[in-house]
């Protein structure tokens, strides 16, 4: 694991998503004698003091806000009381994990909702950016393409509060569309605040917000396809569909698989802010997911220990999922997030 990420770092990042490097570029430069030969650590620190100083603020933030909090997960094994603190709180072993292993109904509900939403989104949301990218790639005029891209990237930069507010204003019972229908004596509809339709609603919000932005990486992969391939294929009599199947799709395959791995690694994380914002209107039965469970149960409800336990298991499972999906990608001959 350590080795593999190191290799990736050495190769200076995800090379598969970019074109071949020119021979003169950073990674391809000829080997020189190492500037670190025959130097003590102290001498190297002294020599690199300016660089280390530049890195210091950033590394300090990473240490304090990404690594140090990991220690806080010990409260998953405590009956944690905020006024007692970690050192004074009672240790309870694995008791807090009972909600998971004995299947507390609220936890199971959150888990089920999370998995259903992930499934819906992997099936229906995930492929859309690729489809849109293929569509955009086929647009003849560069100006039209640019303009459409600019418009479709925009929602990605809006906050969830704004997106949720916009959806309410457009689709709500007193929203723009219903107002319009009512004015013209047509039937009205209601989708906002209906528990049965909640998963549909948040899925459509995700589609509206991020499909356009998701195309950016596929368009980049498509723009690197060698035009000679198409020309040669056309010469050999391949039709439009065969060219798409044999040239265009293979060009985006590894990016697609890479994104799929990352998405699977996030299988237990679904739209937290988005759901917190809308939970009041539809109730927890339809909308509670693991992250909102941790928030509602722990920070709002004061059950710190059990919530930390759920959060910890979720985090560990997330890492296992990424590594597992990556392994699977290797089995199928892809490079995945990191190489072997």
């Amino acid at each position: 694991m350590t080795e593999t990420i190191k290799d990736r770092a050495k190769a200076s990042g995800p090379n598969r998503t970019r074109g071949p490097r020119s021979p003169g570029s950073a990674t391809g430069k000829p080997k020189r004698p190492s500037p670190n030969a025959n130097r003590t650590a102290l001498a190297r620190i002294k020599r690199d003091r300016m660089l280390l100083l530049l890195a210091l603020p950033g590394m300090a933030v990473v240490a304090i806000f990404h690594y140090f909090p990991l220690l806080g997960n010990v409260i998953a094994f405590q009956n944690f009381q905020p006024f007692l603190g970690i050192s004074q709180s009672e240790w309870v072993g694995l008791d807090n994990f009972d909600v998971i292993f004995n299947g507390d109904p609220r936890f199971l509900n959150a888990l089920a909702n999370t998995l259903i939403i992930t499934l819906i989104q992997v099936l229906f949301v995930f492929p859309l950016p690729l489809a849109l990218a293929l569509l955009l790639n086929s647009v003849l005029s560069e100006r039209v393409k640019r303009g459409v891209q600019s418009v479709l990237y925009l929602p990605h930069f809006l906050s969830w509060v704004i997106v949720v507010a916009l959806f309410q204003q457009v689709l709500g019972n007193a929203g723009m569309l219903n107002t319009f229908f009512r004015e013209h004596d047509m039937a009205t509809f209601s989708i906002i605040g209906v528990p049965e339709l909640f998963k549909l609603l948040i899925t459509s919000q995700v589609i509206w917000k991020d499909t356009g932005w998701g195309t950016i990486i596929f368009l980049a992969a498509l723009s690197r396809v060698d035009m000679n391939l198409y020309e040669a294929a056309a010469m050999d009599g391949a039709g439009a569909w065969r060219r798409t199947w044999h040239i265009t799709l293979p060009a985006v395959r590894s990016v697609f698989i890479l994104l799929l791995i990352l998405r699977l690694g996030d299988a237990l994380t679904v739209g937290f802010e988005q759901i917190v914002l809308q939970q009041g209107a539809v109730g927890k039965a339809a909308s509670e997911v693991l992250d909102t469970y941790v928030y509602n149960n722990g920070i709002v409800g004061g059950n710190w220990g059990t919530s930390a336990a759920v959060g910890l298991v979720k985090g560990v499972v997330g890492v296992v999922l990424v590594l597992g999906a990556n392994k699977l990608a290797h089995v199928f001959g892809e490079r995945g997030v990191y190489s072997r």
Partner: protein
Amino acid sequence: MSDITVTRSNLVFGRPSLIARGGRAVVLGAACLAVILPFIAVISTSLASQEEISRAGGFVFWVTDPTFDAYRAVLSGGVVTRSVIVSLGIAGVGTALSVLCTIGLAYALSRTSMYAQKPMLLAVLFTLLFSPGMIPMYLVVKQLGLIDSYWALILPVLINAFNVIVMREFFLDLPAELMESAKIDGAGEFLVLTRIVLPLSKAVIAVIALFYAVAYWNSFFNALLYINSPEKWPLQLVLRTYVVNETPMGVDDLAMEGSSLPPQVAIQMAILLISVLPMLIVYPFIQKHFTKGLLIGGVKG
């Protein structure tokens, strides 16, 4: 130019039939309208008077007699005005600090001969794989005494590993000869960074700055978690209270003289538009750098 693109597309897809072209135009047109139309309605309604809103039955799609009363009301010194100032301050200070720290870290990590470069790079990369969890994060912020402080909205998100990686990749792709020649002329690392690397990296810095600024401006949950006093609320929390939860805005909230409030829906739409406005202003300038700056770094996390 256009000749080239026509040939290119024809090669990819063959000569498109009329039906295919029509279908494509319909799909892309509908997608664009789905983004643009809500904004037009928001802008129109925010500019509408009470009569016009009543006549339309709630929302106005095209305003005939625009009035800026709603904007005057929310920007005259009440809750919204205060939160706009808070959000601008956090986004400004946060983005400046984030960009500085990210440049420093990314540049150091791009110097492969630096002491402890590999372990540091690994430490940054690993943060992409896991998050410490909401509750431990909350405890740390609390332990540091940052609850109810604006710093709680800045420090925990000061460094985004993805942005560091993108910037480092960009620095690695700069021609090494330039930096070496500067060093031969006696420049130290700091001078190389400020005189050679940064002037060549304006595009990537612009994009990364936009990413950070957007993240700070849009930050909602951290504020919900860490900020207790309503008078310190950033704009997103105000937006949630008055637009998503539709709490009516009273005279006190608006700090208005006199009694005639603009219509609530116009006020709501005005807040909504104000919260989108900075994005709409900056976006066109930075948008052209997206593919250049971002995709050199490869994968979007």
